């Protein structure tokens, strides 16, 4: 227990440090003196540009880490992640469809609703394709099917796009980013993410019991239908809302639980909150790094995460190979 508290304190300290850094670092260096002086031109940079970006990075990272930990716990599958299994891509497809039809511009909530709806559909399809607690291979292949489906849908939207601006908008969307976000996005996404995260956290005890397999979990009084419903809604709200405000940022949910598991032990329920904190730290750190890219345009965060995550995914696959065959 003391160890757990220490880990929480360490994560919290890292988050505070990273948040401070995130407010200071960028094209323009904003030292502490600029924070308190409203007349300093850098004050606006800190509070109007970097603050929403920082808060959004924390929120998105936290829910993505949480979603990954919950999905891994439920499927008892260390390769599960809303990004890797196509849930994020399906959410993006939902968003792209609204962009394509121009409905996104009319009302911003349409994009989010479409993203969350498609994310929910994706989770349900995933559970239907693979079945509960099916093997690693079935699950990953189901994810591949969803990814392919989403990619085909997006390609269709691109090829039929009415004008180059729509194409541009869609492509920008697909490469997740935190640049140029305002407090509107924060305010919009926060309630959905909070409700989704709360639903996911409610499954903690059921996820623990699932360590012993479905039958034993049921014999311990766990109602798996309730767990499924909570998770499907929770994943749809968290993944859908984060895709709606930042586009697709993959691999957070895949990487984070693996980094946290050695620290807090394998119990899935105990992994949820630390994964949220570590996810927030990972996304924030990655976002600080992409801001420092020495190019005219900064590297998109989604691209950077994919570049970081793909080798990690590969390394994980190599270590798990014995379980796959």
């Amino acid at each position, binding site marked *: 227990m003391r160890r757990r508290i220490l880990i929480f304190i360490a994560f919290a300290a890292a988050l505070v440090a990273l948040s401070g850094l995130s407010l200071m670092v960028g094209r323009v260096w904003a030292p502490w003196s600029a924070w308190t002086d409203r007349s300093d031109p850098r004050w606006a940079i800190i509070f109007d540009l970097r603050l929403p970006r920082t808060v959004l990075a924390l929120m998105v990272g936290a829910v993505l880490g949480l979603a990954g930990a919950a999905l891994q716990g439920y499927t*008892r599958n260390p390769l599960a992640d809303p990004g890797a299994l196509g849930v994020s891509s399906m959410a993006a497809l939902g968003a792209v469809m609204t962009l394509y039809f121009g409905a996104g511009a009319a009302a911003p909530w349409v994009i989010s609703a479409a993203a969350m709806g498609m994310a929910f559909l994706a989770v349900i399809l995933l559970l239907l394709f693979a079945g509960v607690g099916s093997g690693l291979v079935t699950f990953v292949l189901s994810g591949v099917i969803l990814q392919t489906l989403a990619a085909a849908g997006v390609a269709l939207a691109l090829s039929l796009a009415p004008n180059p601006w729509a194409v541009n908008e869609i492509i920008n969307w697909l490469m997740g980013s935190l640049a140029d976000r305002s407090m509107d996005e924060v305010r919009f996404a926060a309630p959905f993410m909070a409700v989704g995260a709360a639903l996911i956290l409610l499954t903690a*005890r059921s996820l*623990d*019991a*699932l*360590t*012993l*397999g479905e*039958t*034993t979990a*049921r*014999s*311990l*009084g*766990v*109602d798996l239908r309730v767990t499924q419903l909570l998770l499907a809604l929770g994943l749809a709200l968290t993944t859908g809302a984060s895709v709606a405000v930042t586009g697709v940022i993959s691999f957070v949910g895949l990487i984070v639980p693996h980094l946290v*598991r050695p620290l807090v*032990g*394998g*119990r*899935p329920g105990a992994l949820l909150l630390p994964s949220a904190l570590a996810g927030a730290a990972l996304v924030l750190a990655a976002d600080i790094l992409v801001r420092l890219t020495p190019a005219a345009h900064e590297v998109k965060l989604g691209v950077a995460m994919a570049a970081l995550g793909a080798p990690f995914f590969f390394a994980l696959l190599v270590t798990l190979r014995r379980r796959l065959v």
Partner: protein
Amino acid sequence: MLSAPDMLCVKELSLSLSGRTILDRIDLDIPSGAVTAVIGPNGAGKSTLLACLAGLRRPDRGEAALGGEPVLALNPRLRARRLAFMEQTPEVAWPVTVRTLVGLGRTPFTGARGPGAEDEAAVAEAMARTGVADFAERIVTTLSGGERARVLIARALAGRPAWLLADEPLTGLDIGHQLDTLTLFRRLAAEGAGVIVTLHDLTLAARLADRLVVMAEGRVVAAGAPQSVLTPDLLAQVYGIDAGVIAHQGGLTIDLIGRRV
């Protein structure tokens, strides 16, 4: 009989899966305070019967009742407090410590605030009874098969169940640990618990069970004390083998002659 408080009563239980009859009108009264061993050849329906008794499978017809209440009508959490179920091929998905895994047996008791002193005491007691306390902080996935099996028994005992239903709990254990496990089950029965196990080893079943239930092709062929149930005729009928049954003090020995032709 159906309302007896410490009985597991099975009435007219039938179940078929895709046209094949798995359980065929099973009638049984299983008393607590005793070890009941369900024996029979592969595919006789033993595991399915156990799952129905535990409320994990819904039969097509008939019911299993715990102290007069149908198990399926019980609230799952309350049912789990009274009845522990050990599946045939248990899974341990994550590298957790022995103490954590045994603690999962307290799932039906722990509230939102997490495990309390009562839970910790029950876990310690279960680990002591199964002899796994010495390696309480080791990771379950690194244990030997025998150690792991004992940890899983400790998990079932952590809920201090009034009924313990174990599907082939001796698989993968050496003869010494098989004996230890059944002796532990006998002790639980002596304390008042109802223990139901499915077994393949007839000699062990005869020695350590108070009652045998013999199943074949979804039916109960015989039930009662081992001496009265296990006869050469029954073995020939159920398993298709020629065997002698040698009775001696405290048990029976099956003297296998060969496959009946």
